[in-house]
């Protein structure tokens, strides 16, 4: 199934645990299958799938308390944490959901601001300001020393 791995990558950081993330992606694929007649040929399938997933995520969030991301020590090897992965994930976790979402979609998945505006049903200017605030917050949270070490 195309795009499931990248959907899961984002779902994992939106939801509270791996099982919930997999549930969200499965729900997304089911909704996409059922609604495939609504997909306009020639448009961006990946963006369409992410839009479905974000809508499903928001619907789930409305039904229960907003989820927070739980970073499991089992997610990544802990041996020395050479790339400072834990620090980065913690910084992403600490972002408000709206900012976390644009970081995941824009920086990690490479969607443009216009595509994110479409996926999230918000004006492009809103995406840009969320992205700008998110980048600033991450910069504040990630130690300069660690950034320099990575570069």
């Amino acid at each position, binding site marked *: *199934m195309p795009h499931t*791995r990248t959907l*899961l990558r984002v779902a994992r*950081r939106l939801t509270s645990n791996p099982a919930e993330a997999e549930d969200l992606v499965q729900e997304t694929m089911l909704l996409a299958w059922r609604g495939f007649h609504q997909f306009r040929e020639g448009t961006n399938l990946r963006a369409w799938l992410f839009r479905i997933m974000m809508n499903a995520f928001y619907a789930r969030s409305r039904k229960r308390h907003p989820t927070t991301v739980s970073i499991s020590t089992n997610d990544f090897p802990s041996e020395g944490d050479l790339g*400072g992965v834990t620090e980065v994930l913690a910084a992403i976790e600490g972002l408000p959901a709206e900012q976390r979402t644009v970081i995941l979609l*824009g920086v990690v998945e490479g969607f443009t601001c216009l595509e994110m505006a479409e996926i999230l049903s918000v004006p492009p200017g809103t995406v840009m300001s969320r992205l*700008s605030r998110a980048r600033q917050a991450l*910069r504040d949270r990630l130690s300069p020393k660690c950034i320099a070490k990575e570069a």
Partner: protein
Amino acid sequence: MNCAEVLELFSLYLSRELDAARASEVRAHLASCPACLSELEHQAEVDARVRGSLPESPWRWR
């Protein structure tokens, strides 16, 4: 283009969404403004760290 205008366009610049004329204006400003260039480099470094920390997740149907 002044610093505030350039900073406002950084997200679009980094995602290569600016048209050629605006991108050229941003580059011209960066060439003469070490502060904005440093800001852009830091943002790009943060982006690189974020990308490097989130590999694709293995998928299994349950």
